[in-house]
């Protein structure tokens, strides 16, 4: 990674590209800068949006001149540059019914828009990523945890990047032409990113499964929506857990009854520890879920 590339989005935005390609390093640097910017509570800054390998800031140029805004960000870049990249964050386990009937039915409906009309999305993606069975693929997807690297497109939709070495990253092309429909709470995958569709709608990602856990609710019905109507924020860590149809149905009943809950545990991610022992650091993060 060389220096950050800054560019103004007209008079109200600065866009900062940490790196052209996605990496944990780029994501981390963006998070660190955005956190510091937030801490400084600079008058005139209205939006701070970390996203994958870049970040976006919206500001009021009548309060802070664009040149001053840019200088501030460059100053923060220099400040966090050599910092030990550690992120105190939280981890949550999300149940997923992989290879479920609803996303498979949707995939079949849009089969002519897919790379391989004769396989389901999960069969196709398992194959092109070198997995001999869907079960092995699910084990990889739900084994190592994922970073929420961006939230957006629509309200509360998290994009996730798996905390594994690049060689182990799951990659899958987007549909040839986007679908006009995707079930709500679909676990999708496009490029190297997982996305959880917070609402039903159009989409182009391969569909691997569905979670019973709502992640966006303007009515804030379930306990974990007490503080806010969207669950995920950039920097959260998510561990998927493969569940059976029986568990899925039980969870859905709990959601309907208003008793379904998610548990978040505090955890610290260290880029250095990850690099020296990727598997070990992943396990360390997941242990926080079950530890006491």
């Amino acid at each position, binding site marked *: 990674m060389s220096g950050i590339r800054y*560019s*103004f*989005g*007209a*008079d*109200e*935005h600065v*866009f900062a*590209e940490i*790196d*052209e*390609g*996605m*990496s944990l390093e780029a994501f981390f640097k963006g998070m660190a800068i955005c956190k510091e910017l937030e801490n400084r509570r600079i008058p005139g800054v*209205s*939006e*701070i*949006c*970390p*996203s*994958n*390998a*870049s*970040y*976006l800031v*919206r500001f009021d*140029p*009548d309060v802070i001149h*664009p040149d001053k805004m840019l200088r501030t960000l460059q100053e923060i870049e220099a400040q966090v540059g050599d910092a030990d990249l550690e992120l105190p964050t939280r981890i949550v386990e999300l149940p997923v019914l992989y290879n479920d009937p609803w996303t498979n039915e949707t995939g079949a409906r849009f089969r002519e828009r897919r790379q391989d009309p004769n396989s389901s999305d999960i069969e196709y993606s398992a194959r092109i990523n070198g997995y001999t069975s869907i079960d092995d693929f699910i084990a990889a997807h739900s084994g190592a945890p994922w970073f929420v690297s*961006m*939230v*957006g*497109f*629509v*309200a*509360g*939709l998290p*994009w996730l990047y798996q905390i594994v070495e*690049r060689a182990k990253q799951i990659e899958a*092309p*987007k549909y040839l032409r986007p679908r006009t429909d995707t079930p709500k709470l679909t676990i999708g995958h*496009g*490029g*190297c*990113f997982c996305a959880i569709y*917070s*609402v039903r*709608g159009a989409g182009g990602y391969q569909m691997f499964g569905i979670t019973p856990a709502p992640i*966006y609710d*303007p009515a804030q019905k379930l306990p974990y929506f007490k503080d806010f*109507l*969207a669950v*995920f*924020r*950039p920097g959260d860590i998510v561990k998927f857990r493969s569940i059976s149809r029986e568990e899925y149905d039980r969870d859905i009943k709990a959601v309907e009854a208003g008793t379904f809950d998610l548990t978040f545990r505090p955890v610290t991610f260290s880029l250095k520890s990850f690099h020296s022992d990727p598997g070990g650091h992943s396990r360390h993060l997941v242990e926080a879920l079950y530890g006491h």
Partner: protein
Amino acid sequence: MAIEVVKPGLATSVQDAGRPGYYNIGIPLSGALDQYALRVANLLVGNEEGAAVLEASLLAPELVFRAPAIVAVTGAEVAPKINGEGRPRNESFTVRAGDRLTFDFMKAGARSYIAIAGGIDVPVVLGSRSTYGLGALGGFSGRKLMAGDVVPVGTAKPAARAGRALPADLTPTYPKSLELRVVTGLYFHRLTEEAAKTFFADIWTVAPEADRIGYRYRKGRALTFRERTQPFGAGSDPSNIVDAGYPYGSIQVPGGLEPIILHRDAVSGGGYAMIGTVISADMDRIAQMQPNNLARFVPVNMDAALKARAEYKHRDARLRSTLSA
């Protein structure tokens, strides 16, 4: 006080000054697309300038008032009528209980604002009454209005009175062909030299897919992106980037075909290269473009963008001093 929706029009929603601060979780600014017309409408009826109003798009609604009120209609060139009788645009007028507000077609402009003294009184969600349709958030039940809805209105301020009018020199016009000023940047360098020229040389036509999320333009020459080995995670099309945040007003060109300018209900990010951003002073003008209107994009630098912004703010200041007098 309340108003009853007899016909909802094409896409009428409750909007105010907007909901900043939640773009990082995908909840956009929302609010009236034409913020100047919002301020005019509110000041004419004695409201706070950012109070909630009804925003109508292309085909305005039919409404019945359940109580007497002071009303003003601003924005697009369209004649309001009370019980079939014409009323002035850009001037506050009185309605009685049972009166019916209807509209002719919009002759110029695409968005009309209906302010009622007291403001639309839907619940405040995350600091705003604006409707964000994609997220079913805010406004009236999180959606655009439907026939049969009864929309609550707050209590009018003592300043509310009929006959307050917007002077001609503060009244915008809505030409069918205009220039939109753009600061290039973001991923502009991904365009070929040829495309970087034709984008600004061509006349672009507003497509039917033009809404609160974004305005799509067509009929210009297709834009080509420089070939490269795509970075990790960026997707295979040369117009793709590693998914990133989209500025308001930013211009993306999926597949190089049709530029899309994101507006106040923007999708907050995605994987299409943005080639520049429309300056803040021109965002209201986009809101008033009808399908088939024409635009030419003009490159400007930051100084010009800030100068245009200062002029815009100066007009706001004159508006406030004129209408609060």
